[in-house]
């Protein structure tokens, strides 16, 4: 019997399997991330950390819709100084960590990234879906700004840097190329799609912030298309994210060109066992179809 390898490498990181939690999903404390790792994730991703603590938006911060969820958490996070303590614990437990981060100015991006990097994280994930970056507006839809921020961060840290892209753009390959030119080691595709939901009885928007981001199965076809297009546009590896719930979704993303995967909303519907479920399904799929490792699937559908 051949040995099936779920272990893989992405942007210089060696992981026991390709499935991780998505940023902002349980990434607020070291103890929760440890649980995610114990439940079978290949690496863990933190909440997006900023320079200063943020309380986030008032509730309601989530609204269920057909096929998914809209959230407007408002990037609550304890601030980078505080969070170094949580990273310390994760490092002591030897858990591979990707630290997600954001800033409100270019300098803030660099400052937060440098601090996280000194704390010994394994990689960084730059969240460019944050709404108000000074002098830029919505960072994620401006290729020039994405390149500048990526370059600035890469200039100051020596960790693998993933840039997480927003799907709220007319041409995602343009942003992907900008991040690649800025020196990104990989891309995470994608963040949530801007959306809203209203209550017909209350006759008002459900989210206190009015709009939020759509995640879950409803996002998947869009996110998968993004991964497909990005794969054809850049050389750097992609972490696929958006609506992944079962091993079939995972295989689709791999075939479309993702090298690794992130899971968020499915933790609501499947529970934390989703990491084991997807990995077991992936293993059987590889076995039954005569593959020896997950990496053999990456981008395979582009060859047909």
């Amino acid at each position, binding site marked *: 019997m051949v040995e099936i390898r779920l272990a893989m490498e992405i942007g210089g990181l060696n992981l026991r399997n390709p499935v991780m939690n998505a940023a902002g999903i349980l990434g607020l404390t070291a103890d929760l991330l440890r649980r995610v790792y114990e439940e079978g994730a290949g690496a863990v991703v933190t909440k997006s950390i900023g320079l200063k603590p943020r309380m986030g938006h008032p509730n309601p911060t989530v609204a269920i819709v057909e096929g998914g969820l809209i959230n407007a958490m408002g990037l609550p996070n304890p601030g980078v100084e505080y969070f170094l303590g949580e990273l310390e614990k994760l490092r002591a437990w030897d858990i591979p960590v990707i630290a997600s981060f954001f800033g409100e100015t270019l300098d803030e991006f660099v400052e937060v990234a440098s601090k996280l990097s000194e704390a010994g994280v394994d990689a960084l994930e730059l969240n460019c879906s944050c709404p108000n970056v000074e002098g830029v507006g919505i960072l994620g839809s401006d290729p020039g700004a994405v390149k500048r921020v990526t370059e600035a961060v890469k200039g100051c840290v020596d960790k693998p840097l993933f840039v997480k892209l927003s799907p709220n753009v007319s041409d995602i390959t343009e942003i992907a190329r900008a991040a690649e030119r800025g020196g990104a080691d990989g891309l995470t595709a994608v963040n949530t799609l801007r959306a809203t939901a209203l209550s017909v009885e209350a006759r008002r928007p459900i989210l206190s912030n009015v709009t939020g981001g759509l995640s879950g199965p409803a996002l998947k076809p869009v996110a998968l298309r993004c991964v497909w297009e990005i794969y054809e546009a850049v050389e750097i590896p992609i972490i696929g994210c958006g609506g992944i719930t079962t091993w079939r979704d995972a295989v689709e993303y791999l075939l479309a060109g993702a090298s690794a995967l992130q899971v968020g909303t499915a933790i*609501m519907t499947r529970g934390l066992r989703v990491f084991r479920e997807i990995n077991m399904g992936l293993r059987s799929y590889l076995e039954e179809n005569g593959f020896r490792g997950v990496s053999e699937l990456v981008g395979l559908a582009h060859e047909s």
Partner: protein
Amino acid sequence: MSDWRMRAEAHRAVRILRVVEEAEGFSTLYFRDALCRKAQPGQFIMVWPPGMEEVPMSLSTIGGESSITVKAVGLTSRRLTSLGEGDLIMIRGPFGRGFTLMGEKPLLVAGGTGVAPMKPLVEEMLSRGLKPTLILGARTRDRLLFLNRLRRLLGSKLHIATDDGSLGFSGPASKYAERLLDEGCFDAVYACGPEAMMAAIYRAAERRGLPIQVSLERYMKCAIGLCGSCAIGPYRVCRDGPVFNGEMLRRVLDEFGRRHLDPSGRSTPLEE
């Protein structure tokens, strides 16, 4: 997911059937909801009076009619206690893991609004033929919630403790609980109320080798196990709790009764 509107996680509008003022600043709001009807004692819902914040509340009645029992402490809870018949609230849930039945002669200890999830638990225990004893604690006799209803259900198995001694035992319910535990032959312990009280009762139960369940509160945002804001140790209070058993509590002793996360995710001392 064509049935997404039927998911417990989805918001739905309910009309308030009536509001009963239990004591000054404490009101019970009754409504009908198909999913809450089938909830377990100890589960909670997210309640959103439009225009205010959405906040977690335990179900204090489970059945054809459901209810929440609200203590007015801040803007949203004050709004809730000021609502009346016919007013609309948005709810989602029920969420989390409720109480499970243990033993045949359990001791239940409720402090303040902690009686909210305990009342349906007492009802369930009685309907299953268990013999529960309840200590109902409050600051003063006027704040003893559901007193008449519980007296009817429990008779002499209802004990009262008030901090000011205006009725029943004078002093904290946890102290009275220790005394009853030494006298009676209880085989399980349940507690809901201020966390310091629950921590004292937890220690009392552990010392006597009795199984225990308590219901915890933490700051909640998503209530669906995703955001992590309600974390205590490796657990999410919204999904793995709110009811914790002794085994779970043993893993979070550095936080239980001591610390909680603020809305930004920073661990801060609990003050009650």
